[in-house]
């Protein structure tokens, strides 16, 4: 159990860092921003889920990740809007995170009896 947690932490942290470095290495900003939505956490999590729970669970997790991607779109759209206001950075970040959570919870409530898991 602890080994699994450590493996997840190291693998996820490493992949997010690698994509973060790639993002920082590119110009213009709109292009480097693509990499902020790179599948870093997804690759790490799906690889471990596949080895512990098998292919069917991995496919189901990815199916729900589609809903998560929609929430991420909401998060980004909110970030674009807030960056053009005078809202402090910490408040903009917190609001955008809450938007992600709100969209994700809403989709989960709406789709949990519809989507196969």
């Amino acid at each position, binding site marked *: 159990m602890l080994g699994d947690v450590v493996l997840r932490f190291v693998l996820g942290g490493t992949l997010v860092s690698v994509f*973060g470095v790639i993002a*920082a*290495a590119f110009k213009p900003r709109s292009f480097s921003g*693509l990499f902020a939505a790179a599948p870093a956490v997804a690759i790490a*999590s799906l690889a471990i889920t596949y080895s512990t729970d098998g292919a069917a669970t991995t496919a189901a997790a990815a199916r729900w990740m*589609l809903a998560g991607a929609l929430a991420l*779109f909401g998060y980004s759209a909110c*970030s674009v809007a807030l960056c053009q206001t005078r809202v402090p950075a910490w408040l903009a970040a917190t609001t955008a995170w809450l938007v992600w959570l709100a969209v994700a919870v809403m989709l989960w409530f709406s789709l949990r009896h519809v989507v196969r*898991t």
Partner: protein
Amino acid sequence: VDVTPRISTRNLRSVARWEHAARFVIGGGVTVLAGLIIERFGVAFGGMFLAFPAILPASLTLMKRQDGRRMAADDARGNRIGAIALAGFAAMVTTTAKIWPLPATLAVASVTWLAIAYALWSFTLARRPPRRP
């Protein structure tokens, strides 16, 4: 106006050490959180955390700089396109995970993400005229 993406070592050098550390900790934390949520609440709610916004500090730190809000908005516009491409990644994994070996699934899904992201960026943001700060 068409823009070509370029490597910028200046951008890379401007990233502080704490930002790298923050990314590692947030990335690791979110991956652990996703695993725990899948275990505790099931694959549905946990699966959504695979698309949690983990690479955040860039926008946060950008906004504090002079002219930073414009750059942060550009960053977030790219992020918005990346999110659409991430749906393509997820669709590819869910379609192929039960048929192909995992390395092939993840490799093809990652290439799908990159192809969608680059195509959408080329047709939209790369053609935006330069804006005043």
